[in-house]
């Protein structure tokens, strides 16, 4: 018993050591490649230089404008997708027939990479935030509507029949039977929708845009300011990771209720 516990903690330390070693080896290789082995700093800037640039970006507050634009696009796109997806999903889920009509249709469209349609969106909505919001809404609509349909349509029949036979009203049925059963599934769909909105908006800013984080990275790449570009990449990845953690925490919180 004792030895098993000790072995497990020893193992845990060893796994952490491997993970830390991986990161350290990566940074060391990066450092050596740029300082000793003569890799051009246009291709790969020195880690220290990137850190300096990152500090400068954060201190000067230069990132605020781009971050604001990107977050604004993500929030609007996600709100539109969440609202339309849950409402439409609920309405469809009320009829087994409609579910069989629309569920395969939506999941079929979901499998097509919607970023394909981005040139059309740019043509119609222009280079500004509107085209990013439109593509973000389109892409994040599908996981939301599919999970809403899945959540509401597959509530255990016995629960529904029992509630009905005990004389529950339509509102009571929704509030105390359908919603609690469907809620966790919808939450997962909403989380996926949010992440997809973020990714597709960063991606579409990269492809064709005038402002936003994705556009900032691209324009720095075109100016060959690689150090600053790396700093912005680190910044964008950190923001994405933060948002990821935040929505996962919200999902866990919502599940527990």
């Amino acid at each position, binding site marked *: 018993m004792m030895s098993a516990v000790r072995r497990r903690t020893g193992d845990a330390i060893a*796994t952490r050591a491997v993970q830390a070693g991986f990161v350290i080896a990566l940074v060391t290789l990066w450092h050596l490649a740029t300082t000793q082995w003569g890799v051009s700093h246009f291709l790969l800037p020195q880690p220290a230089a990137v850190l300096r640039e990152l500090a400068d970006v954060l201190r000067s507050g230069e990132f605020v404008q781009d971050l604001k634009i990107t977050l604004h696009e993500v929030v609007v796109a996600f709100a539109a997708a969440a609202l339309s997806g849950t409402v439409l999903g609920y309405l469809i889920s009320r009829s087994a027939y409609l579910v069989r009509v629309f569920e395969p249709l939506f999941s079929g469209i979901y499998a097509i990479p919607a970023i394909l349609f981005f040139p*059309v969106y740019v043509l119609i909505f222009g280079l500004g935030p509107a085209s990013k919001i439109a593509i973000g809404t389109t892409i994040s609509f599908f996981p939301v509507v599919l999970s809403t349909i899945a959540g509401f349509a597959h509530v255990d029949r016995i629960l529904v029949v029992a509630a009905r036979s005990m004389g529950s009203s339509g509102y009571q049925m929704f509030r105390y039977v359908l919603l609690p059963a469907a809620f966790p599934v919808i939450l997962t769909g909403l989380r996926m929708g949010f992440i997809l909105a973020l990714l597709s908006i*960063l991606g579409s800013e990269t492809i064709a845009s005038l402002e936003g984080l994705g556009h900032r990275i691209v324009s720095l790449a075109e100016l060959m300011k690689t150090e600053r570009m790396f700093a912005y990449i680190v910044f964008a990845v950190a923001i994405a990771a933060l948002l990821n953690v935040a929505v996962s925490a919200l999902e866990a919180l919502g599940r527990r209720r």
Partner: protein
Amino acid sequence: MARMPAALRHPAGARALVILALFGIWEVAARWFVDPSFMSPPSRVVAFMDELFATPGVPQALFTTFLELAAAFALSVAVGLAVGLLVGLHDFSRRSLLPIVLLLYATPQVTILPLFILYFGIGPASKIAFGMSHGMFPIIVTVAAGVQNIKPILLLSARSMGASPRQVLRWVIFPHMIPSFFTGMRLAMTAALLGVLLAELYVSSTGVGYFTHLFADSFEPAKLFGLITVLALMAIALNETVRRAEVRFGHWQST
């Protein structure tokens, strides 16, 4: 369902009607309500298909994009399988390395798209590399998970009957990994498609990305819509192929 037209009684029939209705809305909107230099009705898109394929370079561009996708997918499968086995086969390596893989999987790769162009140029190489960076991770994760989910009793009995490590790999681990491997391939196909198309749309010298820019900049929506339609059909066909393969090979187990 009382009193419904025959075509609507079957969900598939109703689905076809919904799709037709969507195309109808598109046709009406594009014909009468939207500036024709921005949007083309489906009838014109179909009529311009010939001209699209007659445009010098378009068939080659489609072929190039298809090859990029094939290469990205093949590399994703090969590397993903190797790394997935490496990570998944041993308890220790899985616990120490899988979190690193998941962390990399969760980072938004679009932010480093300019780096791929910087390193691999604007030709097909950058698209293949970027597609692979998307397609590889689902395979690593599903293979590692598939290897992990084998019942210990199967491994134990194979070993107690004197199977060599290689025989265990070939006759126990490998067959049990197949279902999750095919799931991984389906996810990898969607991801690799996304990666290749993102890189194409960002900047391209020979692939479809070049022509989407060209047609959008020269206000030829009929050709732009046609090209996108062809690509969407290609995506649907490829997705459907791997999905069928998943259904076909994914459920050999009776349990």
